[in-house]
């Protein structure tokens, strides 16, 4: 007979939460409950699965290195149960707690019976983070009409003239109109109808809409799936579908809406950006970025691709602003490169990124040259700020005179960082070592990058300090109490996914990349290159890549959540909002980061 507390706990614990209550009851009959007190060491070679119910347990390797901490809902012993091999880890009780011991036979039977549970433990064991994503609801894969249709209804009455209709279409910049009589949809009229049924037939401008409209048009329910609309459009060879909600027409879905909603939507936005003639126009375009992000997320675009797309849009905004600045200021007095640092350079920009940019000039920035680029930088930085890419609080911006230098100037600055590194300086400077050219001369930029990489690859002292800087922060070992929780200005608490995760990976990958003279700036590409060149083990590279993807995904989802709730976008994740599986995945990611940091320390911080 089952104990409610045991069954309830299992029902809430991944992966057992996937089981029926009868199956959980069956499982709980094979459990023995043990109580541990602080300081007790747990006998882990018992051929059973350990499930932590309460308390905290710390796992040490045979060299007494702290591996991880287990808490409520965590497991141990599946490693031995899956492989039949024992290891020499020790598990110690750090805070009094209860442990469930599940017998090996029951564990194996459960695995054979429920494939998902088997997969869960196999993957927990092999730490293939990217493979055990939670099963997505199938509906989330598919957009609905309501997700893409514009929330406005432009309609005429049948007795209005075609000229009035044409004027309305021009004013509203639409290609079709709904025709309604007493709030009931009676037809539609499109610009094509005006051409072929009015002009081509030599009908007068006073012709009533009712005479030329398409009667009883095809329509679609607002909550239908988008692919149903696509099917209907191609089946009837039409480009416009009135959208009906509870018998009432609420708008028009056009073929363009459908195309826009597809993956290449950013292309439209980027195209639009490049057509803008004013900063106001760009600002309007940039307001679509949030919507685009929502669409991307609905389409399950992975975070790293979304980051790439967002960065591309920032690039486009920057390029267009530089173009507009030149329209205003005239031709530049010399060749220049507009540089981006940090996340824009790495192409993993998020929705709350700020500006990190600079100018690389062919000539020394003095006199007229200096004035010109000061104005250009001001124009672009202020423009970007209006487009939602906030000014850099650290003043790492081209509008800062110290960041408008000639090749010689930049080269000298990098040379100083590299030749006489100090930990403090490097902490601030590390961002400069991720750089990419956004606009202007690529040749000028290449010269600088080559110069930097040649220096870094042969500078053990620099790499030592860069590694030290990268090791200053560590990933949390688990979600314990409040000590890993950061507070932002508004006293919201949470785990900072960037500071305590993503940045750590970026930082240590940068150390390797600079040591190996790798030109790539994107963290994932750097990892691929590092593995390809044999600088790091391909399995380590894959693990870091997985951890990076996972954390980036969580941050992306957090940002989406913030947007939907109408909050400010932050990197602070409330651990209580994390699902069981994500928690396991995050812990794995942190473990990957910790071991990668240990390797960096071993590799770059010895013998000095």
């Amino acid at each position, binding site marked *: *007979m*089952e*104990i*409610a*507390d*045991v069954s309830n*706990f299992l029902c809430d614990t991944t992966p057992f939460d996937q089981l029926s209550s009868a199956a959980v009851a069956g499982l*709980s*009959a*094979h*459990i*023995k*409950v*043990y*109580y541990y*007190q602080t300081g007790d060491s747990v006998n882990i070679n018992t051929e059973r699965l350990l499930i932590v*119910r*309460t*308390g905290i347990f710390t796992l040490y390797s045979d060299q007494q290195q702290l591996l991880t901490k287990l808490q409520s809902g965590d497991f141990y012993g599946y490693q031995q149960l899956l492989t039949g091999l024992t290891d020499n880890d020790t598990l110690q009780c750090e805070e*009094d*707690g*209860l442990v469930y*011991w599940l017998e090996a036979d029951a564990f194996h039977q459960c695995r054979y019976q429920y494939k998902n549970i088997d997969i869960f433990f196999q993957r927990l064991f092999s730490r293939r983070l990217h493979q055990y994503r939670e099963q997505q609801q199938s509906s989330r894969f598919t957009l609905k009409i309501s997700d893409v249709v514009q929330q406005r209804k432009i309609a005429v009455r049948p007795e209005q003239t075609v000229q009035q209709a044409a004027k309305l279409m021009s004013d509203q910049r639409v290609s079709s109109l709904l025709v309604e009589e007493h709030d009931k949809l009676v037809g539609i009229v499109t610009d094509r109808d005006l051409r072929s049924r009015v002009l081509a037939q030599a009908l007068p401008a006073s012709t009533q809409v009712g005479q030329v409209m398409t009667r009883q048009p095809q329509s679609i329910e607002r909550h239908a799936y988008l692919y149903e609309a696509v099917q209907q459009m191609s089946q009837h060879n039409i480009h416009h579908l009135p959208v009906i909600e509870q018998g009432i027409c609420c708008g028009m879905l056009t073929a363009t809406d459908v195309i826009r909603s597809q993956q290449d939507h950013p292309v439209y936005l980027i195209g639009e950006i490049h057509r803008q003639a004013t900063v106001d126009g760009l600002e309007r375009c940039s307001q679509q970025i949030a919507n685009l992000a929502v669409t991307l997320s609905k389409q399950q675009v992975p975070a790293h691709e979304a980051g790439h797309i967002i960065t591309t849009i920032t690039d486009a905004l920057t390029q267009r602003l530089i173009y507009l600045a030149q329209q205003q200021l005239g031709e530049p007095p010399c060749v220049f490169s507009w540089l981006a640092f940090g996340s824009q350079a790495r192409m993993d920009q998020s929705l709350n990124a700020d500006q990190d940019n600079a100018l690389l000039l062919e000539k020394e920035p003095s006199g007229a040259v200096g004035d010109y680029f000061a104005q250009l930088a001001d124009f672009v930085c202020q423009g970007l700020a209006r487009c939602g890419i906030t000014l850099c609080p650290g003043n790492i911006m081209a509008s800062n005179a110290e960041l408008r230098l000639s090749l010689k100037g930049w080269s000298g600055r990098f040379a100083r960082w590299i030749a006489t590194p100090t930990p403090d300086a490097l902490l601030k400077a590390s961002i400069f070592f991720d750089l990419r050219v956004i606009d202007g001369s690529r040749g000028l930029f290449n010269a600088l990058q080559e110069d930097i990489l040649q220096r870094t690859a042969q500078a053990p002292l620099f790499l030592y300090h860069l590694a030290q800087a990268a090791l200053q922060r560590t990933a949390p070992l688990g979600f314990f109490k409040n000590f890993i929780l950061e507070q932002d200005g508004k006293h919201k608490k949470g785990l900072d996914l960037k500071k305590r995760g993503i940045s750590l990976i970026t930082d240590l990958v940068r150390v390797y990349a600079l040591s190996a003279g790798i030109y790539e700036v994107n963290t994932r590409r750097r990892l691929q290159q590092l593995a390809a060149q044999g600088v790091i083990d391909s399995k380590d590279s894959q693990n870091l890549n997985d951890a990076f993807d996972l954390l980036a995904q969580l941050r992306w989802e957090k940002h989406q959540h913030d947007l939907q709730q109408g909050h400010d976008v932050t990197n602070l994740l409330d651990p209580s909002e994390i699902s069981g599986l994500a928690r396991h995945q995050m812990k794995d990611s942190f473990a990957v980061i910790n071991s990668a940091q240990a390797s960096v320390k071993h590799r770059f911080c010895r013998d000095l």
Partner: protein
Amino acid sequence: MLSWLRRKNTALSEVVTHFAKVPYPPPGSLVAQSNFLALDLELTGLNPRKDHIVSIGWVPVRAREIVLAEAKHYLISSPVSVGQSAVYHGLHDRQLQNAHDIAEVLTQLLTQYAGYVFVAHHSALDEQFLRVACQRCFGKAPRFRFVDTMKIEWQRLLRRGKVVKHDALKLGACLERHGLPAMPDHHALEDAYSSALLLLSELKPGGENMTLADLYLLSR
């Protein structure tokens, strides 16, 4: 209604005789190696002569591990109405219609767990009711050996120089103090499991060399 009178025969009293024959482990035995049975009764009232057992739940503890596979919970058919006590244990007369005969359940308890030290929270009450029930079913009652998690807790708090308020010794309050998961009160099996958890926690300070004699001292 008077079925317990008819059952008063030698075949049945052998259950008690057999139970009494199995010796309890010597007082010097290690607690870590002893067998316990955590048990709880839900009752129609507090008077063993007038009131009845409504349900019984138990779960054994061996080598300080609670063995969930043997957790049992039985509703007991009662000769009188559950009446007002339903307020506490949530068991109503209609649920008790397909309940078990007390003799049947007691027979299982006595045959399977002879030699086990019984554990209950405020064990005096449970012991009295068990004895009366045995007397009625089998014509005689064995001596039980009980350990009381409430008394252990009381001594523990006294040793710490605390003023012990009445409410502080209730099962729920004890669980909370020990950082153990709280459970719905007044369900015989859940309460038996809770007192098993409490026992495990109370045994911890005694360490590996704690003997049954030490435990009996704590439980006075």
